[in-house]
């Protein structure tokens, strides 16, 4: 059943303090809406549980990307288009810029926001593995003050997050210490554009003399939350990229992920693709030194 707009409220306080006060006055009642690319889909289908929405699209503090010597801070309501166009994001955080380019078509990139992607917490969300691989930190804000949560602790279960009902994501900050890494991003879906992923990998690696000095692997759509493949990283670190190492990594990847059968794919297919993507990354990492 299509939603009846007369049953829903939408208020636009226009400044952060008033948004937070309203959210605190009736916790869990007010649903923040920025670009609406997730919220409006549920709303139109008549599946949105909340009846009260609060507009955060027009809050200036949430729309800025600020650069500091050691980190960048991305306002929660920055769009994928803004991420793609930002020089530091595309230069130093290519996995995030690539993930932004995967997300929907141009119209959805013009409206979809990074904070929305995190708060919606779909395990298939494109930007989440990139945030995990870059050690992001999330700043949550409420009338009670602000607190920082390491992104690796943000998702607590399927569609569950560490946010309290009165909290809003203010920004996501990324440390600027990954520009020396080789990066690899690949999303496998039914179609290149606008499809939801079956598996996606964001990976960073450092190699010298054929030996992996450091490696970070994160995957989406293979567990209830975006997953860091720590065991596979351990298998790889300090070792030379050889067929036997790639085989060992493949084995560990399939042990470490928890894929399921659903409308988009099967657990078996996902496991095969996940292991292929890690192998492809390792081949690229090895080749990066040969080519250099």
């Amino acid at each position, binding site marked *: 059943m299509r*939603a009846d*707009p*007369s*049953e*829903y*409220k*939408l*208020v*636009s306080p226009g400044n952060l303090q008033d948004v937070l006060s309203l959210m605190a006055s*009736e916790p*869990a*009642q007010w649903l923040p*809406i920025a*670009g*609406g*690319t997730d919220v*409006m*889909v549920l*709303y*139109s*289908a008549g599946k949105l*549980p*909340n*009846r*009260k*929405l609060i*507009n955060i*699209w*027009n809050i200036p503090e949430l729309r800025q990307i600020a650069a500091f010597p050691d980190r960048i801070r991305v306002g929660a309501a920055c769009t994928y*288009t803004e991420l793609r166009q930002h020089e530091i994001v595309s230069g130093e955080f290519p996995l995030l810029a690539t993930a932004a*380019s995967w997300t*929907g*078509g*141009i*119209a*959805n990139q*013009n*409206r979809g926001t990074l904070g929305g992607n995190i708060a919606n917490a779909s395990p298939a969300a494109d930007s989440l593995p990139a945030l995990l691989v870059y050690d992001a930190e999330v700043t949550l804000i409420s009338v009670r003050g602000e607190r920082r949560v390491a992104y690796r602790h943000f998702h607590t279960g399927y569609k569950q997050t560490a946010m309290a*009902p009165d909290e809003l994501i203010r920004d996501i900050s990324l440390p600027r210490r990954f520009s020396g890494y080789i990066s690899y991003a690949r999303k496998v879906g039914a179609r*290149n*554009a*606008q499809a939801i992923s079956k598996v996606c990998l964001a990976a960073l690696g450092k190699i010298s003399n054929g030996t992996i000095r450091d490696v970070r692997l994160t995957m989406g759509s293979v567990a209830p939350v975006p997953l860091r493949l720590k065991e596979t990283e351990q298998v790889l670190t300090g070792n030379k990229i050889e067929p036997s190492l790639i085989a060992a990594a493949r084995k560990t990847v399939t042990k470490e992920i928890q894929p399921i059968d659903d409308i988009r794919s099967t657990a078996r297919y996902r496991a095969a693709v996940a292991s292929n993507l890690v192998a492809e990354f390792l081949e690229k990492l090895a080749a990066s030194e040969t080519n250099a």
Partner: protein
Amino acid sequence: MNSSPETSAKCEISFSVNAEVKSVFVYPMERLLDVLRNDLGLTGTKEGCGEGECGSCSVLLDGMLVNSCLVPVGQANGANIITIEGISTHVLMKPLQEAFLECGGAQCGICTPGMILAAVHLLEKKPEPDLADIREGLAGNLCRCTGYMQIFEAVTTAARRRVAK
């Protein structure tokens, strides 16, 4: 969390649509798509999927291509909106229209207003797009008739002619 349904109030929303100031008295959660079609009679903007996948309802909102089915009208207060009707006076209209006709870029026509708006949005940002740019720029617009090739060709042709001038 379910909050109890309560009736919300209609309010006045003002915006510029195709360079004319308009005021509508609507519920803020009405979709911009419905307000354009039902309140303002601008039926060139089509509804396809109603969930942001197909691009039939594309409009330019403050210069940005958006799916109007995903915009609550309450967020459009004070905005500058261009629909397909407003594109009729755009400098890109003639080359795009001619190229779509010549190349067979339109069949049933439901996707066409969205395709034209996505093409305008692309060509305004990138006057000389390559095929990859065009594919990306139109990736959010689905067509079930043409198979896309004629549409890509039409946008390529329009861009080339425009640049040649």
